[in-house]
């Protein structure tokens, strides 16, 4: 008898369509669809995908409660032995959906789950709750991810003991397991120190947790005297994208002068973002970067001034390191220009 598995994928991997179809509501199909074939092949009949749930990424993000309820209902009725989602690579909404639905299936239905994604995917934030296999940041990584995911999934289905995260290839879940080391602590510490002094590789036994939180700045006292700047990760650029900001994995940001611009129109501005359906932003970019209404509030004296420049990049698969670098740089420009507050819009 083989284990029954339900697989969760998005509209893209089900070949329904790209961003223009990201709004589709969940559906359940018999058997395997798309990337599930690679998992089935690895399992060699020991486990099999019996149903595939397909859900649009935007639908899940915008209707999380409804999507969860519908999908949990289907999974409950099917009584699978296992639930597997993705892998999502570096697709942010997809990764978030995979991790969120897997966590819900595990917690509410008591069914074992697994997903996979790139380490920087926001969905990976749930790594302490569920098993997540780290993958490459794009779908070319499927070949490498499938065997690791399939193997760990089978181990979980068979109730076999799971090894440490580095042994079985999942993201560290913050769980410590006691075991006996062969060498005493003092010797291990000295060995590590010598390795460090000699610039040789060593692995810490206790990585320090990184809490990278920044405390909120004090509020603006008098809005009517404040200069406010707009920034966006939604890729709004002057028509023609003069700085050639990439539609995904952006390598830079743009600085654009909007002095005197009262309204963004289809003739003057557009989006460079390749991670959402661009139709609405291209029709009227104020839907992402609200310059028209900021000008209105400026004229009424609600705010002191809309800053003459806005900063934009494409937040689509863009690495955290790059995003940090962009903002650290343009924040200094904003500060030097005397900007009092920023409104950042994201798609």
């Amino acid at each position: 008898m083989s284990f029954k598995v339900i697989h969760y994928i998005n509209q893209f991997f089900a070949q329904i369509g790209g961003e223009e179809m990201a709004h589709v509501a969940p559906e359940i199909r018999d058997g395997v669809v798309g990337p599930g074939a690679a998992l089935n092949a690895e399992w060699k009949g020991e486990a099999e995908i019996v149903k595939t749930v397909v859900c649009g990424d935007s639908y899940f993000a915008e209707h999380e409660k409804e999507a969860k309820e519908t999908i949990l209902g289907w999974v409950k009725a099917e009584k699978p032995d296992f639930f597997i989602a993705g892998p999502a690579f570096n697709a942010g909404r997809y990764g978030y959906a995979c991790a969120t639905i897997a966590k819900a299936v595990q917690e509410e239905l008591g069914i074992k789950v697994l997903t996979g994604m790139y380490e920087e995917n926001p969905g990976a934030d749930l790594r302490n709750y569920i098993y997540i296999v780290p993958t490459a940041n794009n779908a070319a990584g499927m070949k490498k991810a499938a065997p690791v995911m399939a193997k760990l999934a089978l181990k979980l289905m068979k109730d076999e003991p799971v090894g440490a995260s580095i042994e079985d290839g999942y993201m560290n879940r913050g769980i410590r397991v006691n075991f006996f080391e062969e060498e005493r602590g003092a010797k291990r510490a000295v060995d590590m120190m010598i390795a460090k002094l000699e610039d040789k590789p060593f692995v810490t036994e206790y990585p320090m947790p990184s809490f990278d939180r920044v405390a909120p700045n004090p509020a603006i006292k008098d809005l009517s005297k404040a200069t406010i700047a707009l920034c966006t990760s939604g890729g709004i650029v002057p028509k023609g994208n003069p700085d050639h900001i990439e539609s995904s994995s952006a390598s830079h940001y743009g600085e654009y002068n909007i002095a005197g611009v009262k309204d963004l129109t289809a003739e003057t501005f557009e989006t460079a973002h390749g991670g959402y359906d661009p139709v609405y932003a291209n029709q009227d970019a104020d839907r992402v970067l609200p310059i028209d209404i900021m000008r209105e509030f400026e004229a009424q004296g609600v705010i002191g001034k809309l800053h003459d420049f806005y900063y934009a990049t494409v937040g689509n698969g863009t690495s955290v390191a790059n995003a940090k670098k962009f903002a650290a740089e343009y924040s200094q420009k904003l500060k030097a220009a005397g900007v009092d507050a920023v409104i950042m819009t994201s798609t």
Partner: protein
Amino acid sequence: MVKEIERAGIPVVHVCTVTPISMTVGANRIVPAIAIPHPLGNPALTLEEEKDIRRKLLKKAFRALTTEIEDQTIFE
């Protein structure tokens, strides 16, 4: 990016649709938006009605920027 702006000493409000992601990345002042492809608009409405949406959302953003907070806060 919001975190780096905050780190530079400038108060910042994040207007976005998927607020849990905003919480994860560490934004402090958050205003929920309309939808992913049109956070501050709704193509199903008239242009005038859309402007109303933007007025309301930006007023929320102003409220967020003028409110003292100690922790991550979503301004509904």
